[in-house]
């Protein structure tokens, strides 16, 4: 049953399937609500208040979900830095998940800010507050999206141009591609440095909140822990997306790639656990994990969801069974997402009597932004050669591939 993924293929399936329409409809609802929000104000669509001024949009769609969007970053480290060549066929899928993850996260950020028109001042470096962690996140995420992710996602698009049959387009595609060939290492290095910076900065965001974040999560090592978790979740996201794609679109199961991805994810997750518990012990707050108050229960839940799958996946037989690998990775993902989310909202307590629960419209918008990511992903894999497949599955017209494995 195991196959060897070597090439990227375009899914020959109609775009307008039922799932695509459902995800698009959810995204459409989010757009309508966003439009309403721009005409009225944040208070009309969200449950945010002066105590909990950040909610689902920033804390879930940006801080938490962009960790899932770190797939392109994490897998590129394996493929390009550690030179594990077998990962090249899944790079396109990985960078696409990053593109849609970051894209929708930044969209959520744009909807969330109250005075977006003042973004124009970002063009004037005199207004920058270089000490601001949020400034770093904003600039760095935008640069990553524009300079690295867009470029990394170019080859499938160029390939389509190349095969369009129009000689002018073909030539243009080739020209751009030749330029990319020269600059590619510089782009890959940027796609490593920038996410390293902003994924750790996302952890530093709540460091400024001081004692208002519960001590189980509040540490000077938050940037490091957030960064490691970005790797774990990046691997996990690519693994889950590939597993689901393989299941729904019959791509086969490349045990070598997926098993190894699961293995690296497990090691990274164990590294995170070691760092997390070393830090907790060093700060002397480990006892607070067992007080069984609200925070202790959040902590234990999060830890269990990270610890148990990590230990299970140490076993080779678990990693080699597609079902087990998928289930454990899924649980690990929930645990990892909880870790990234809890310090921002559940373990954040402002002074005074404030409560926050997202409003229905806010939840619909948050889901809609995520649905948009899925819809764009579905569109892309049916339009461009992105998903991996064995060489035998590649259609004749796709076999000649000047852009292959990029």
């Amino acid at each position: 049953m195991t196959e060897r993924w070597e090439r990227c293929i375009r899914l020959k399936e109609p775009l307008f399937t039922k799932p695509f329409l459902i995800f698009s409809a959810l995204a459409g609802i989010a757009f309508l609500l966003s439009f309403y929000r721009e005409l009225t104000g944040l208070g009309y669509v969200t449950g945010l208040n002066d105590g909990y001024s950040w909610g689902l949009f920033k804390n879930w769609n940006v801080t938490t979900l962009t960790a899932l969007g770190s797939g392109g970053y994490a897998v590129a480290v394996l493929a390009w830095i550690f030179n594990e060549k077998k990962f090249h066929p899944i790079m396109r899928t990985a960078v696409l998940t990053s593109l849609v993850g970051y894209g929708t996260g930044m969209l959520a950020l744009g909807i969330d800010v109250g005075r977006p028109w003042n973004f124009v001042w970002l063009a004037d470096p005199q207004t920058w507050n270089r000490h601001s962690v949020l400034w770093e996140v904003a600039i760095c995420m935008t640069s990553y999206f524009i300079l690295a992710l867009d470029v990394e996602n170019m080859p499938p698009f160029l390939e389509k141009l190349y095969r369009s049959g129009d000689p002018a387009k073909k030539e243009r595609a080739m020209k751009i591609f030749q330029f990319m060939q020269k600059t590619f290492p510089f782009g890959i290095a940027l796609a490593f440095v920038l996410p390293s910076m902003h994924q750790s900065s996302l952890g530093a965001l709540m460091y400024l909140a001081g004692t208002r974040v519960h001590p189980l999560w509040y540490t000077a090592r938050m940037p490091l822990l957030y960064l490691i978790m970005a790797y774990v979740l990046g691997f996990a996201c690519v693994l889950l997306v590939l597993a689901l794609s393989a299941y729904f679109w019959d791509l086969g199961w490349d045990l070598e790639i997926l098993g190894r991805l699961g293995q690296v994810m497990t090691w990274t997750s164990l590294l995170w656990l070691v760092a997390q518990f070393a830090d907790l012990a060093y700060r002397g707050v480990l006892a607070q994990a067992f007080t069984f108050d609200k925070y202790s229960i959040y902590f234990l839940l999060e830890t269990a969801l990270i610890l148990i799958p990590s230990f299970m996946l140490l076993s080779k037989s678990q990693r080699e069974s597609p079902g087990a690998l998928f289930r454990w990775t899924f649980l690990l993902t929930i645990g990892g997402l909880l870790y990234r989310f809890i310090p921002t909202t559940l373990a954040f307590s402002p002074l005074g009597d404030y409560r926050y629960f997202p409003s229905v419209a806010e939840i619909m918008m948050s889901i809609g932004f995520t649905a948009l990511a899925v819809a764009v992903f579905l569109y892309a894999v049916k339009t461009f050669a992105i998903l991996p497949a064995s060489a035998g599955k590649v259609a004749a017209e796709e076999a000649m591939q000047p852009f292959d494995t990029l």
Partner: protein
Amino acid sequence: MDVNRRDILKGLLSGSALAAVATAGVPVAKAGKAEAVVPVPDAVGLMYDATKCIGCRACMPACQNANGLQPDPGGSGGLYMQPDTLNAHTKNLIKLYVAADGHERSFMKQQCMHCVDPACVSGCPMAALHKEPHGVVGWNPTLCIGCRYCQIACPFNIPKFEWDKVNPKIVKCEMCRHLVGATETQPACTKVCPTHAVIYGKRSDLLAEAHKRIKEHPGFYFEDRVYGEFEGGGTQCLVLSHVDYSNLGLPKLDKESVPSHVRGVSDFIYRGFLTPVVVYGGIVAIVRNRWKDHLNDSDHGGNGKAHGEEKPV
């Protein structure tokens, strides 16, 4: 494969050696310890002595008039001003603390503390929140993008946001900076206070006055200390009361400000942006080798050669 492993080791080693050499020359503070911010010499502030406050709340409408804020009916059904927290209509609020036993009481004037090293200013991505020449924390509507990081960062939970506006503002005390020095010599609240419970002046003078009062009445003020002298790196608004400050909504804060810790961590990691540059150089070196290898690798896209236009990549 062996060659590749050696390559990466070489790359990583040379990269980190370069980083070590380069960073050794840059003087940076240890992790978590950046230089503390000290008050500017002519820093101004308020001192609120809760034991002198009679709770008349004259300062509240005075504040609203001076700042062009609409009265906030709160939950009163629109009959009179009665906000229960600071909000987008209220920059200044007198609250009353009553202990559970009903005996110990103290008023509290809630407003921006104008920190010496403010977390809101440190976090504000666009420098919309900034320190004015006398250390007053001002807000610039032209630059604010409405991200509300100031609300997340402020340890006193002071900045408020106009949630129901299309063009929302951040609302917080700016010590009447638009009036003081222009038409007024002091903020509206200190001007109207009938008992001089809140006074305006240079921070150093106010601190001296606070210590004088503590000295004259030993054991009267809570722990014989003035809140804001050291808390969170110091604040320009000072509070005196006979009850535990944490009962007045004033959190226990370290002497070192949180922003100084954040700067410490970020200086430790970034070394004046040297780290990203060095890492970038190292990664480029490694990936260039990989890329050459990748272009020559016959394993991938083997039929590109037959295609004859470009080497397969």
